């Protein structure tokens, strides 16, 4: 592993194939490097992610796509041995700037995790928690409106409107994941990060979540990490392929899947590696 890493690190890193459209990008990464202790997990990643669209990160396990995702809301800060260099801007504001409050950042950049992780509280409390700690509702009615609107947007309202006081952990896996999405959008983030949101779900629940992602694209900048290339093809407009810590290729999804420029991408999407 180490030997391979060093050899690839000394090779010139493939620069992004695609020059991003100027001005339209919501999230911009430049020369992002991530180290876990001695391990160089992410190497010189530069990417532009447009607003109001879905960007998917694909690549074999351990390629750094989740690591990069967690850089965007600085979730990697919680790992003490993790070190990030380079620059990530959201709306041309450097999120690694020392003056930036990480808690505020995370309110702007919502996250949905691989395994549904609702709080062990009621469905209502799950969604109300974020708005409450950020003081987004002046009174109970407003809070209720936020909760209902979020459930509505997450397409969960029909299923749970009569059982808002029941524990969120009592829902099915797919419902739980949509609850987590509702929880993320309740604080009106600008960017939503999804770390393999469907990997623990059955195909029907997956279809519902994908449908939801497609709808949410209207209002949010969504970045999704997925192992399913079909999913990436279905939900995303742009796709980035990561391999061994490098961003190998990035471009419109149709292009990546039909006409990959890099051999590694081609090998991966045709199932020869990964």
């Amino acid at each position, binding site marked *: *592993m180490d030997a391979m890493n060093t050899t690839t690190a000394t090779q010139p890193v493939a620069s992004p194939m695609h020059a991003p459209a100027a001005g339209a990008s919501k999230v911009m990464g430049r020369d992002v490097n991530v180290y876990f202790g001695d391990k160089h997990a992410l190497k010189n990643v530069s990417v532009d992610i447009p607003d109001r669209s879905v960007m998917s990160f694909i690549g074999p396990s351990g390629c750094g796509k989740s690591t990069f995702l967690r850089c965007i809301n600085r979730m990697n800060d919680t790992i003490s041995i993790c070190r990030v260099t380079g620059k990530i801007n959201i709306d041309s504001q450097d999120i690694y700037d020392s003056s930036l409050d990480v808690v505020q950042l995370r309110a702007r950049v919502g996250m949905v995790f691989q395994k549904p992780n609702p709080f062990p509280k009621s469905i209502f409390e799950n969604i109300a928690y974020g708005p409450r700690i950020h003081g987004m509702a002046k009174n109970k009615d407003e809070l209720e409106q936020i909760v209902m609107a979020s459930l509505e947007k997450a397409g969960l309202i029909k299923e749970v409107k009569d059982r808002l006081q029941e524990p969120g952990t009592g829902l099915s896996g797919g419902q739980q994941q949509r609850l987590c999405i509702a929880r993320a959008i309740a604080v009106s983030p600008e960017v939503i990060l999804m770390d393999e949101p469907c990997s623990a779900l059955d195909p029907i629940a997956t279809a519902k979540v994908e449908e939801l992602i497609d709808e949410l694209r209207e209002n949010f900048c969504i970045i999704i990490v997925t192992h399913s290339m079909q999913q990436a093809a279905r939900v995303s407009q742009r796709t980035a392929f990561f391999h061994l810590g490098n961003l190998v290729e990035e471009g419109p999804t149709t292009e990546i899947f039909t006409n990959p420029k890099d051999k590694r991408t081609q090998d991966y999407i045709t199932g020869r590696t990964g």
Partner: protein
Amino acid sequence: MTDMSAPSAAGFKPRRLDTTSSAAQARIRARYRSEYRFRAYGIIALVITTTFVVLLLSDIVRRGVPAFFQHNAVLSVSLPKEAFGAGDAVGIKGADYFPITKAALQTAIPGIESRSGERALTRLLSSGTADILRETIVADPKLIGTTFKAPLLLGADADLYLKGEGTAITKDVPRGIATPSGTTGEVTVLTSSNDFAEELAVIKRSLLDLARSSELELGRLKRSGDKANAPRIVELEAEIADLRKRADEPGGQEVLTSKLPSILVEINGGLVKATKLSATGITGDVLLPLSSVAEAQPAKWNVVTYTTAESSRKVDDLTVAYIERLKSQGAIENVFNWRFFSVGDSREPELAGIRGALLGSALTMFVTLILCLPIGVAAAIYLEEFAPKNRLTDLIEVNINNLAAVPSIVFGLLGLAVFLNYFGFPRSTALVGGLVLALLVLPTIIIASRAALRSVPPSIKEAALGVGASKQQAIFHHVLPVAMPGIMTGTIIGMAHALGETAPLLMIGMIAFIVDVPGSLVDAATVLPVQIFLWADLPEPAFKSKTAGAIMVLLAFLFVMNGLAIWLRKRFERRW
């Protein structure tokens, strides 16, 4: 990763799973056998532990239940106005109540004139009876000048006798006509028949028993071969010869000693204790005076035997006679011993109560809990969630784990050196006791709380961080509530440990004999286990049941405390 080839499997041929051959069958059977065996071990272990617990508890309950009951003599007490001085509060408080209780007894058992008789009579009642009566009168001064039925606390010996630690009493209905020679002092009672023959036989058997036990002693002395024992051996040999001779001789007259069962004659409303016994009559001392020297017809008098020899019981014949007299008058009542729960310790078993120790324990636990829980949980949260992982925190962690295993007496010495000597806190107080026990419990709570915090899935914290909660918010709003049941469990274990702790409290002076019930954290106090330790050490037999009773109270305290904690834990759990 993907480029790496799989380990070479060339030349390896997987064998088919064999389930049919006899070897395979034997293997399966062995597997089942081992499972059954293990289950059997489990059941045996369970049965053994259950047996021990049941034995222990039933023994404690059997010994302890008598402590919760107390015998009173319900006597009519007359309160003459002149005994209370001016009749005002000072007069009532300052009055001498001892003569009043004594008079009440003398009314119930009249005719006792000898000094020893009077002494035995007044000793029936507890030394605290007069004080208890004072409290009654102070609370209700209207009683002065009247005669009323008052329950008077019996002394521990009388109480124990009534609880069955005395002697068996048998009564024989004689056939002859008895004639007493007097009503008081030394009298003879002669009967017209051989009414005492049976009692004489009993005495002869007892003589033989005495001879046998003396022979045992003789044998022991002879085997030891010590020259210094020679005079005692001669003495014993003579004694045995005498005892055997007396036992073998039929009839005649026997001199009764305190080592033999007591024979008494109930006649003409009085009681005569035999000192000399023959088949047709006794010579003896009057314990309860006779009304006359008239002849008593067969059904009108009884021969009474106190089977246990006087020397091997706590109460003498005179006291037994008094108690039996009171009992026959219906003046003895057995009531729930509220006093046990309402007063502090005392040197008199019948006056001793558990309240001081109970409150002392409660106050101590209170101090321990309010110190331990916040400090312990805060330390656990800091160490688990916030502290940087470096040598210093590692060192702290190792030391906390070690502290949990430090013998508790060391904490007592620490408390003595730091809290008493350095800070100068008051000795034997619940405050210092609580501080010392807090030191003892803190490691347990920290370790348990850390384990509980660690067992909370990290996804919950991530979820909270993901919606923009700060680390502190994530921990206090989400991680801590989920960890709370585990923290509560650790706290319960720690507090139960502290409740039963004795050794460290000895060091800070909580072993002292403290009569007053503590009213605050800085009053001298003792705690339940120390009280048990103190009572177990006392020679009075009545304290044996008090000890067991105190153990029952301690266990009840523990169950209540744990029950409360479990209820709290369930409430926390139900919120999720």
